[in-house]
C-alpha cells in the first residue's frame, strides 16, 4: 500500500486533523481554554483552529483550570461538546474536582440522567522542552467515571480524539510531549476512528508481554528489536485507553506468554502498572511463569536537571534488563 507523503503527520497534526473533522460536522463542538487563539495553544496544540472556526468556537479564557472545566461541564449539560485545553498535565490537579467529582460523577450520581461529553486535552511526559513533566494520569483511574486516553502514534491520535469527542462520557486525553512533533507516520484520511477502551498489540511475540502506553510503546518496540537479536520475542500491548482498561487483550497476551512487564513514565505507586499486575495476578496466576515486574518513575517529583531527570524515564536498557529477569536469565552488566 502506498502511503502518500501528504498523509505522513506528526501526532500533533493528526490530533488536530481529528478535531477539525469533528468540528466541521458538529457545530456544538467548541474549544475552551487559555491561549488557544492567536497563540495557537501550548506547543501549537490548537494551530489553525481559530483561523478556521473563529472566536465563537475557539473560546479563550483566563487562567482558571478549575472553573473552565466546570464551565465545560455546564455547557455539556446544555447540549454542547467542549474540548478543554489544560495545556500540561502538571495543571490537572487544579481541575481534579471538576473532573473527578463533577464530570466523572454526573452520570452515576444522577442515575443515568446526566452525561458530560467533555474532552480535556493536556500535554504530559518528558520531552525536548524540559518543562511541565509531572505525570498525573493515574489519579484519574482511581476514582470512577473518567475515561483516560493516551495515544502512542499519530494514527491513534487522530482516531482516539475523534472517538473521545463523540463519546458521551468525560475523557482525559493526554498527549505525550516526546511524541508530539516527531516522528511523522501514516494517518488515514477521513473518518478514521479508534474505539475507546481497546488496547492494540503493537508488536506480537511469544516470550513475554510488555504492557505500556504513550511513549512507553516506542521504547518497548526499540527494546523488542534489541531483544529479538538475542532470540527473545516480546509482545508489546499498547493500552491506548487506560480507563476503562481492556483487560481482555492484556489477559489473552499474558496467558499466552506467561510473563508480564508493565512500563510507564508515571510513578509506580498506585499506578497503571500496579493495577494491571493486580488484575493479572488475580485472574491468571496459574499461567504465570515468573513474578510480574514493573518499570515506572521512582517516588520523587520529576526533577529539572538532565542527569537527574533522565533517571525518571523508562529506557530500552531497563526494559531489556527486566525482560531478561523475567526470562530467568542472569543479567550481566552492559
Amino acid at each position, binding site marked *: 500500500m502506498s502511503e502518500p507523503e501528504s498523509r505522513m503527520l506528526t501526532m500533533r497534526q493528526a490530533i488536530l486533523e481529528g478535531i477539525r473533522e469533528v468540528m466541521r460536522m458538529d457545530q456544538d463542538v467548541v474549544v475552551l481554554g487559555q491561549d488557544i487563539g492567536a497563540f495557537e495553544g501550548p506547543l501549537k496544540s490548537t494551530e489553525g483552529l481559530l483561523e478556521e472556526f473563529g472566536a465563537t468556537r475557539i473560546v479563550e479564557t483566563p487562567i482558571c483550570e478549575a*472553573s473552565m472545566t466546570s*464551565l465545560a461541564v*455546564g455547557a455539556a*449539560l446544555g447540549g454542547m461538546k467542549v474540548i478543554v485545553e489544560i495545556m500540561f498535565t502538571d495543571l490537572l490537579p487544579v481541575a481534579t474536582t471538576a473532573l473527578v467529582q463533577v464530570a466523572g*460523577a454526573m452520570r452515576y*450520581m*444522577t*442515575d443515568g440522567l446526566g452525561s458530560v461529553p467533555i474532552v480535556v486535552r493536556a500535554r504530559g511526559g518528558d520531552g525536548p522542552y524540559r518543562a511541565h513533566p509531572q505525570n498525573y494520569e493515574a489519579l484519574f483511574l482511581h476514582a470512577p467515571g473518567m475515561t483516560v486516553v493516551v495515544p502512542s502514534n499519530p494514527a491513534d491520535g487522530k482516531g482516539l480524539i475523534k472517538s473521545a469527542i463523540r463519546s458521551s462520557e468525560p475523557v482525559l486525553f493526554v498527549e505525550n510531549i516526546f511524541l508530539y512533533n516527531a516522528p511523522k507516520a501514516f494517518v488515514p484520511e477521513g473518518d478514521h476512528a479508534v474505539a475507546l477502551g481497546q488496547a492494540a498489540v503493537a508488536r506480537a511475540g511469544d516470550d513475554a508481554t510488555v504492557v505500556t502506553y504513550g511513549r512507553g510503546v516506542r521504547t518497548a518496540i526499540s527494546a523488542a528489536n534489541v531483544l529479538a537479536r538475542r532470540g527473545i520475542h516480546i509482545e508489546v500491548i499498547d493500552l491506548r485507553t487506560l480507563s476503562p482498561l481492556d483487560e481482555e487483550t492484556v489477559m489473552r497476551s499474558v496467558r499466552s506468554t506467561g510473563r508480564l512487564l508493565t512500563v510507564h513514565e508515571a510513578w509506580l505507586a498506585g499506578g497503571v502498572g500496579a493495577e494491571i499486575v493486580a488484575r493479572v495476578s488475580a485472574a491468571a496466576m496459574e499461567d504465570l511463569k515468573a513474578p510480574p515486574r514493573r518499570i515506572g518513575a521512582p517516588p520523587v517529583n520529576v526533577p529539572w536537571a538532565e542527569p537527574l531527570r533522565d533517571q525518571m524515564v523508562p529506557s530500552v536498557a531497563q526494559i531489556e534488563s527486566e525482560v531478561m529477569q523475567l526470562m530467568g536469565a542472569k543479567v550481566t552488566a552492559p
Partner: protein
Amino acid sequence: MTSQATKSGVATSDRLLEWHRAMVLSREIEEYCCRLSGHWYPSLGEEAVLVGAYSQLDEGDVAAPHYRGALIVPWLRGRSLDKVMACVHPSQTSPTRGRLYGGFVGALEHQVVPYVTMVLGPTIAIGCGWAMALQRHALDRVALCGFGDGTAGTGDFHETLNLAVVLNLPAVFLCHNNQFSISTAAESALAGDAVAGWATRYGMPGSTVDGNDVEAVAAAVGEAVTRARSGAGPSMIEALTYRRSGHFIADPAHYRDSQLTREWESRDPITRLERRMADAELLSEAQIQERRRDARDEVEQAAAVARAAPALTARDLWPREGE
C-alpha cells in the same frame, strides 16, 4: 417574563398567593426533613430568598441552586411534591435512586443542576457553563446560580465571576447570605465589601436586598434576569438573611449570639408576607392557618407515598437493565 412585579414594584395578589404557598411548602418540607434526620441542613427562615429568586425563572431557564433548601427549587420548576419527598426517602423510584443525598439531587429534566460534588464552588461555574450553551443556541434564556456566603470565599466563585463578565454570560448570581458557613461568621471571613460589593469590582451590577422580604428578592432577581435575558450580561443579588438553625439541625450553634437569632426569628419571612397579605385583605387569619395546615398535610401525604415505594436493594448499586 418577569410579570410578577408591576411597574411600581408591587406584586399582584396571585403572585403573593403563589409565593406564600411555595414558602409554606418549603418550610414544611424542611421541618419534615429535620424530624427525619439530625444531619439535615435546614433552610428554615430562608424561604424568601429561595422562592423570591427561583420563581423568576421561566421555561427553558436553568437553575443551579445552593444546596441549602434546594428541594423547593425543582418544585418551583414543575416537579411534583411526591417526587420531591421521594428524594428524602430513597427508593427504587426516587430521583437518582438514592445515589445523591436527598437535598442535593437537583432535577436535570427541569434544568436544575444537582449538587454532585459536596464541594462548594463548582456549581456556580456549571450554571454559567449551561448559560453559555443557552447563549450559543441563541435562546433568550438565563441561568440563576445560587451560593452561600461561605462559597464566596472559594477560588471557583471568583474565577467564575470573572469568566461570566469576560464571556458576557446570561447569568444571575444569587448569594444566600445567611451570615454563617458552619460556625464561621461571614463578617469575619470575607474581606472588603463582600459580597455584592465584589460584584461591582468585577464589572457587573451588584446589589443587596432584604432576604426575608420575598417581594424585594423577587423584584431584584427579576431585574437581573431581565438584564441577562436581554444580553446585557451577568449581575449579582446578595440576599441578606439568617441561618436560624445550626449548620445541621442537631448542631446547637453555641458559637453565636442567641439574642441575634431571636431577633431574626421575629423577622420570619413567611409571617411577614402573611401580615402584608392580611393587611391587604388577601387572606384572613383563618385562611392563613388553613393554608399552613394543608401544606403540612400535603407534605406528610407525599412523604407517606415515598416511604411506601419499593426499597432499594444491593442491585440498585448498578445501572438498570439495558442502560
